[in-house]
């Protein structure tokens, strides 16, 4: 039962991948991941990540990661702005410390920095988690703050700020010997510039203007997830997420996955996800008069997507290997310049443990 609880906690919080106090001193792992995203809107992203964790002699684990995203795009957004294909890199590095406080409580402190040619961010996260009911339940609370500096390519004089405060409350409960349930509520508030300096609202022959979204946005998300063991070799993973914000966006996400252990070392996972959102109150594909708030960001339009994928994993004594392929179909209901998009995401991960 405790093993199952640990499995569930992996799902809803990175800070809960295992109890610090339960890990052996000196143990750790290094994982390298290489992923490629490509879609039929002329965009590709190649992601390389290295992530390492080690347990110190005291009940503390140290984690560090570095990530590089190489983006190349000539999407409809880029072409609409009358510019050519662009290529840029995003580099992220971060570290986190997780400390056990007694046998039942642990605290987490993390920092992440991300930089690209027109964006810089600094993110700080703190969290506390406590086991309850003889480790059959776990309660966690976390807070994060991100400070973003938004720039514009080739334009050192353009600078806008975006600050985001976020909090999460999570609860995991072992329901029975085969079932775990997790619930998480997240609240975030963003203030500052939330548009794109490259995007313009255009109505041919009438008016044009830089897009002007509101400077404040408050978001709520509630996620419920259930993990259920179906025999010794098969696990079912189901989740639902409800999201709402004060820009008028409401979304629903449903995901189902099943993992099956083919042998002691090899596991296959199949998953499917559906997402649906309605547009922000002020979103229009075309405006017929200047409005107080305007955006043509298709991520704020009404759309749905469906994702399906397969993951094959090998777990050896000292190293793991996983290969993953996901296909995603997007359909935009009120964005005629791009009615839909098909994307393929493939990744290869290798973990070395000691």
């Amino acid at each position, binding site marked *: 039962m405790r093993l199952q609880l640990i499995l569930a906690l992996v799902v809803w919080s990175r800070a809960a991948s295992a109890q610090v106090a339960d890990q052996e001193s000196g143990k750790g792992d290094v994982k390298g991941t290489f992923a490629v995203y490509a879609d039929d809107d002329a965009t590709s992203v190649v992601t390389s990540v290295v992530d390492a964790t080690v347990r110190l002699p005291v009940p503390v684990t140290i984690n560090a990661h570095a990530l590089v995203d190489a983006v190349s795009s000539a999407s409809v957004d880029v072409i609409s702005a*009358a510019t050519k294909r662009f290529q840029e890199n995003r580099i992220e590095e971060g570290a986190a410390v997780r400390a056990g406080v007694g046998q039942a409580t642990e605290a987490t402190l993390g920092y992440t920095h991300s930089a690209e040619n027109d964006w810089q961010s600094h993110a700080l996260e703190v969290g506390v988690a406590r086991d309850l009911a003889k480790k059959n339940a776990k309660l966690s609370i976390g807070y994060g703050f991100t400070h973003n500096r*938004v720039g*514009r*390519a*080739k*334009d*050192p*004089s*353009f*600078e*806008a700020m975006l600050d985001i405060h976020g909090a999460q409350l999570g609860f995991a409960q072992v329901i029975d010997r085969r079932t775990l349930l997790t619930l998480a509520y997240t609240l975030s508030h963003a203030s500052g*510039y939330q*548009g794109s*300096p490259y995007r*313009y*609202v*255009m109505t*041919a*022959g*009438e*008016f*044009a*203007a*830089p897009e*002007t979204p*509101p400077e404040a946005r*408050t978001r*709520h998300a*509630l996620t419920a997830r259930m993990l259920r063991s179906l025999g010794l070799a098969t696990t079912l993973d189901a989740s639902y997420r*409800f999201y*709402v*914000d*004060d*820009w*008028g966006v409401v979304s629903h996400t449903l995901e189902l996955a099943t993992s099956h252990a083919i042998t002691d070392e090899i596991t296959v996972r199949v998953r499917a996800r559906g997402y649906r959102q309605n547009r*922000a*109150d*002020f979103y229009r594909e075309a405006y017929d*008069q*200047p*409005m*107080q*708030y305007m955006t043509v960001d298709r991520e704020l339009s009404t759309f749905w997507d469906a994702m399906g994928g397969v993951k094959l994993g090998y777990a050896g004594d000292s190293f793991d290997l996983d290969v993953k392929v996901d296909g995603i179909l997007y359909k935009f209901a009120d964005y005629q310049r791009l009615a839909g998009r098909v994307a393929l995401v493939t990744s290869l991960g290798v973990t070395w443990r000691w």
Partner: protein
Amino acid sequence: MVKLFPILLLVGCATGLDGPASEPPLDREYFRCDVQPVLAARCSFPACHGSARRPLSLYAPGRMRYGVNWDRPKEPMTMAELDMNFAVASGFTSASPAGEPLLLAKPLDTSAGGYYHRGADLYTAGDVFMAKDDPGYRMLASWIAGATAPTTCQPVLEVGQ
């Protein structure tokens, strides 16, 4: 679902994001006489803003026209063209996220405090306005600041260099 209701109610109260913008105090006659000549002379080349592909898309005699026959390209601006140029230019007079209105900051050379402007890359001799004392820049700035002109005004000829 019952517990979600207060959240939905809270969000519902926060709407009102879909209202029209307040009308900026921009004078149409000043635009016709002092701004349009600057835009026509300094910005409306076909490779620049005399193109429907640009967000700031401008009509001008001898360049992109609307409702004017191809064999009379140098006809004076029509009222419809002036209205459209006024509406398009007005959209770039609000303060940008970085501070200055784009209609002033983009054509101003970065050495004088302007923003990056691809036009300065295309024409390597610098940006449209190299300094804030350029007569053309001053007229755009005056319009945004609320300058007015009588209905009898005549379009200026001095638009800077």
